[in-house]
């Protein structure tokens, strides 16, 4: 390839960051943020959004992303420069944040595998939300790794469907956003 642009930067190891973004809940705000990530080539590992302060129409978006230190700094500044964005907080930089996600897992099976699935679910602390003679829908809340483990185990026991919320996160301690 020939061109008149500078060469690609030397890669430094990527880091995983969890960002909390407070935004005006107005039409298109999610498209603005998702579009920023796709337009500038940033990664999104997980993105969750919901209105958290109804009177003020403020939503909280939790984004898990990866990038080099320079890219992470850019992501934060680029988010902050969007007009409807109030604040961007790097939860990872503030210390070990509490991170949770919820998964719904449908398992289909009969006989031994069915009872084994129920035992495993109990061991993981998953709740059974729906049960038929040949299926379960389990609900599990935990950090992403725990949910991954649960899904891996269930894969051998008739796993048929998974739905995950993505990560919601909050900093530890008395300090608030």
């Amino acid at each position, binding site marked *: *390839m*020939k*061109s*008149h*642009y*500078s*060469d*690609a*930067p*030397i890669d430094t190891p990527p880091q995983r960051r969890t960002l909390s973004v407070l935004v*005006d809940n107005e*039409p*298109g705000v999610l*498209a*603005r943020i998702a*579009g920023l990530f796709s*337009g500038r080539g940033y990664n999104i590992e997980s993105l969750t959004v919901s209105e958290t302060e109804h009177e003020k129409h403020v939503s909280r978006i939790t984004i898990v992303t990866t990038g080099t230190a*320079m890219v992470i*700094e*850019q992501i934060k*500044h*680029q988010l*902050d*420069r*969007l*007009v*409807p964005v*109030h604040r961007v907080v790097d939860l990872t930089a503030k210390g070990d944040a509490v991170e949770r996600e919820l998964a719904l897992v449908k398992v289909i099976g009969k006989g031994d595998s069915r009872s084994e699935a129920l035992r495993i679910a109990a061991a993981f602390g998953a709740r059974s939300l729906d049960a038929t003679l040949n299926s379960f829908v389990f609900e599990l809340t935990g950090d992403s790794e725990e949910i991954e483990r649960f899904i891996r185990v269930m894969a051998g026991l008739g796993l048929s469907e998974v739905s995950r919320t993505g990560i919601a996160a909050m900093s530890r301690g008395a300090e608030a956003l």
Partner: protein
Amino acid sequence: MTETMSGAEMVIKALQDQGVEHIFGYPGGAVLPIYDAMFHQDKVKHVLVRHEQGAVHAAEGYARSSGKVGCVLVTSGPGATNAVTGLTDAMLDSIPLVCITGQVPTHLIGSDAFQECDTVGITRHCTKHNYLVRSVEDLPRILHEAFYVASNGRPGPVVVDIPKDVQFAMGKYDRPKDNQHKTYRPQVEGDIEKIRAAVKLMAGAKKPVFYTGGGVINAGTEASATLRELVRLTGYPITSTLMGLGAYPAADPQWLGMLGMHGTYEANLAMHDCDVMICIGARFDDRITGRLHAFSPNSKKIHVDIDPSSINKNVKADIGIVGDCGHILKSMLAEWKVLDKAPDCKRLDPWWSEIKTWQARKCLAYRGSDKVIKPQYAVERLYALTKDMDPYITTEVGQHQMWAAQYFRFESPNRWMTSGGLGTMGYGLPAAIGTQMAHPGKLVIDIAGEASILMNIQEMSTAVQYRLPVKIFILNNEYMGMVRQWQELLHGSRYAESYSDSLPDFVKLAEAYGARGIRCNDPAKLDDAIREMIASPKPVIFDCHVEKMENCFPMIPSGKAHNEMLLNDLSDDAGVDIGNVIDVKGKALV
């Protein structure tokens, strides 16, 4: 005072309340109510362009030359999509614009109605912010907010998309007391501790250089005045980006000329060898830095920018100061004046003598000719014959743009309107129209190429209709010159599609529009022809036939650092063999 009126009337009222005198636009079905409201008043004057892209560039020229917010009014669908290139141009060059677009009625949105497009979706990435107005109650707030967002913080274009039923709907209009956004508050004042640290670093520098950009122009004429005072007080050399030309006077001995890919030898070497770089309102763009890893390797860098995302984006700053250039320059000046020990100017002598050796290299020298007009000579003569008239210069994009930046010399800010970030061919003529609208009676020249000018040539009709005597000075080499230059550098001089075939007769074309046409291909007759152009009360197309194979030097080719520039004397004559200058590694760059 609260008044009841239609949404369309609110648009006009808000424009009046914002002090808008001119709006550039093109009517269509979805904006007819607004045009009707405009018909009943004469405070806001409408300029009818011939293509919506032209409207946006005209508003850009208006904004950049006057410091005001430029305004655009276009219809839905194709009106909005035609405006996209102009909006992107304004986004990249940080030009404050408010663009009002019509939209199909709210109940038809999403139904693929006639002339419907997802305007806010399409323009989301090429505007600073955009709005779809769903209710007439929101309209007054959004209109005023749009002006606030466009002009505060890092300036940029704002789109307000108004469905036709909202234009017809009746509502209450109140001029908001404070023209603000409820949460958007860009930082204006810089962190004083960082400013003190920066001034301390500057005071200890042995090889300092100021590197300034369009941010200084955007910060207003006072910022340029403060910059001049600070630079003179320190005695440091100063260079500027393409966008920043005019903030510091080109006639001053501390001025090194423009830097970057086609910048001067002395400016680029000063950047490469400096020990302290003071970057004010510039963004370390790839046309400036060349190879990033070799960019100014031994310097401490101070970076002042209103946009926090500009700092550390491409180049790590040792001291990054967020805020408005004008305010921070004032604080820097004040801090410099109260330094414990005034820095000894003598310490700069070795640095200046080094710079003088680079200047002695005369990097802008070129081989003259008495047979054919050299493009550099044409710009030099244009400058010499117009400099006392305080001219406003716009350009298209390409070789002519770089020659204009190199050989035209700017003494004041807001006199130089060019498409820097996006590099939009077709920018210059509409921008000249907008500039002339903002500055009646002034000399406005679009330095153009024969390929670029054809991209928005229809705007000749606008210039003639509004009796705007803009001068279009075409450096006609019958090539897309910059494309050809790169083909020589990278592609074995295979001139794929870069020649201008079947060109119109520009003199006849001018006459067809009711303008004046002048042709010149003799260096001896050039001065008289330029004088004739200036003297004409009409818009003029000046078809200046120049040396066809001339290339633009100096140049930092790809994969090279600032101290590895190509200079003009590599060439024997026109038609330089530059095909072997970039090595295999350079050619293989991303």
